């Protein structure tokens, strides 16, 4: 499977983490694509990485080594986690795309961090300019900010419709849209978003009678988990994952100081588990539980993800104290063991139903 399809005449830059401002890529006249693991099972990455290493990162490496991102001109990594830092090293040694950049995303979010992140974004801009051989104009950066803001606003609107008990569309359908948005040309996908009717075809299909589930975690690039939950009789109404609400929330201020505005928006958006501050994460999750009238929470951890392994027990303790049913699901990124997971999900949904009855 060649996951990266370039538009005619447009270079493609891949990225791996939601802290990468796509606006700068777009302003350079390049296509911005969030790359996903493209292989169903690993063949080559095991030669470089240990068995107990993030399977998402291993899948990206394996996909790169096997030429699955054939049309991709470059990639922007972030220091998201230990595994991702190592992916950059291995990528540069063994995959070697023409362009590669490590974006340093601060873990703090005070003014000093915003300043430093602004300088990192300016460095990214300079590197991209060197790569394309031309300057990125202020106008094109402003235009790309406008384009991304419009898409974000539409996505948030769509995701927030799930708050209502009468207008619920399938969670797997929504996740598919989120994933598509991150990998599609922006204008094309924004047009598609505009055309989604206020009332989705799935409305009143009985989903609003079902237990409402929030999925929390990091990267979920496949629909298996959501589909299994739906098959078990639950409705995934919200997801706080790399592709979910926290990715889309918050607009970039338009106008002067574009780079600083980008830094501010990306650094201050709702945090993912990489950022310090369990309290902030718990507030974010409990707010979602309230806003979306959640009946149960699934915490999805990609195997060997330290952030998830540390955060899940803290979130669990808090949610249990609020009597919110909670379950941790570990997965191998491609959900190769979805059958086994499915049994646990069915039991969880039955338990919630019992509570609701």
């Amino acid at each position, binding site marked *: 499977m060649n996951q990266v399809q370039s538009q005619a005449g447009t270079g493609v830059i891949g990225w791996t983490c939601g802290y990468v401002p796509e606006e700068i890529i777009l302003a350079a006249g390049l296509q911005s694509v969030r790359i996903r693991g493209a292989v169903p099972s690993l063949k080559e990455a095991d030669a470089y990485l240990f068995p107990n290493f993030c399977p998402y990162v291993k899948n990206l490496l394996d996909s790169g080594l096997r030429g699955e991102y054939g049309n991709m001109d470059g990639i922007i990594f972030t220091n998201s986690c*230990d595994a991702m*830092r190592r992916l950059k090293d291995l990528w540069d040694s063994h995959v070697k795309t023409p362009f590669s950049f490590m974006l340093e995303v601060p873990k703090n979010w005070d003014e000093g961090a915003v300043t430093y992140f602004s300088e990192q974004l300016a460095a990214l801009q300079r590197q991209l300019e060197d790569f394309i051989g031309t300057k990125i104009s202020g106008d094109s950066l402003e235009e790309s900010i406008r384009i991304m803001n419009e898409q974000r606003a539409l996505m948030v609107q769509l995701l927030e419709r799930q708050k209502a008990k009468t207008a619920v569309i399938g969670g797997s359908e929504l996740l598919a849209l989120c994933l598509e948005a991150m990998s599609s040309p922006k204008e094309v996908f924004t047009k598609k978003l505009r055309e989604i009717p206020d009332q989705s075809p799935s409305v009143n299909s009985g989903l609003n009678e079902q237990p409402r589930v929030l999925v929390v975690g990091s990267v979920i690039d496949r629909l298996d988990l959501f589909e299994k939950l739906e098959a078990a009789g639950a409705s995934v109404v919200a997801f706080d994952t790399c592709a979910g609400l926290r990715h889309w929330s918050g607009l970039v201020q338009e106008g002067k100081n574009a780079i600083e505005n980008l830094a501010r928006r990306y650094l201050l958006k709702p945090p993912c588990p990489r950022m310090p501050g369990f309290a902030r994460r718990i507030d974010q999750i409990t707010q979602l539980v309230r806003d979306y009238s959640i009946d149960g929470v699934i915490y999805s951890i990609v195997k060997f993800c330290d952030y998830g392994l540390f955060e899940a027990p803290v979130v669990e303790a808090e949610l249990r104290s609020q009597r919110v049913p909670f379950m941790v699901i570990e997965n191998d990124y491609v959900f190769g063991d979805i059958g086994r997971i499915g049994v646990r999900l069915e039991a969880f949904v039955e338990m919630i139903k019992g509570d609701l009855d």
Partner: protein
Amino acid sequence: MKAYLESIVAFTEKKLEQKPSGWHRLINELASTFSDAFDENAKVVWVSSYAFPVELLWAFDVAPFDFEIACNIIPPAISGNGSSIMVTAENQGYARDICSFYRLALGAHFQEMVPKGDLFLTSSYYCNGKAKTNELIARAQWKESILFDVPNEISRSSIEYVSSQLRGIASRLETVTGNRLDVDRLRESIRWSNTARASFEQVNELMKARPSPWDGTKACFLGIAGSLFWGSQLRHELNVMLIHEMESRIQAGKAFPESHRILWFPWVPVQQTNIFTTLKEHQASVVTAESARVYWPEIDESNPFEGLALKALNDPHVGSSQRRVKAIVGLAKDYEVDGAIHFSTPACRHENGSFSLIRDALRDEGLPVLNLEADMTDERNYSADKTMTNLLSFFEILKNSSARGCH
């Protein structure tokens, strides 16, 4: 834990009365410093000293508590019974896929073995688990956890970002201790750090002798745990003791005979293993260790915050793996090693992720590399038989490689 630490202090004092030893002094001072953190009047700062420029702490009257080292020098951990503590964390939901160092610290926290902290300092470099553990325990003690965020690149902006955080931390230390930062005292701390840096380079230089006069795995431990004392006079004194010991061993021809010279990286097990006895039996001498390397330039005492920022930014575990590759290959050449052993603890993802690049670079130099999979402190992940087999096979490779005159 306090009782454990006091027992270590008593034991090492006895040893030191019998014979001066840099090693026993190190353990004694670590245990004694951590024990001070239980004093109810102490202003306790939790820190991972190998990943923080602790020179700043020595400019204040605080009791530094390095939770990683403290939890790993107490008898349960070193006697192969660390899991009795870890299991408490595991029962609270902390999976065994988390590094054993952090399960041990969390278990000690849940068993109420650790001292109360007044300030929790952690850092973004080395691994993700360290910062999360520090923050979890701070949260449980209703205290603030400060993350010292060190980017993976050195530039004017990263130096400013890092030094400005250090200024902020100094300000928090002022609040905790109730005393203003005495800049002269900070400069004195930096002077001691620079003096100790120079004497530690002497230690490293002496270890180049054939046969090597000291055990590189101990130097590795000193490089990590002894980080606590950068900025204190003590660190220099420890180095001087070791220098005298090594010099006298060299002069008396008492260095242990060596058939194989080994480079060791990156960590050492703290639990009891058969690794070191097996190495000794086969005259495999660990002559240098990555963690014992002096990686930072002298700190500029006239510009202390920037100097300390540069120390942090130059850490080999900050930045790309290539920085480590270059340094490790350099060590291999400088110490004329015959091979390298990578001690791989299971959940050390940032480090294990670099392994293949380091291995390939060493192999390009014609050096055999053993990936010794074990666990620093969880005895449930350790197999003496498997380790023995791996080591024996490696010695065979070294013999063959030496017979072929590979290097």
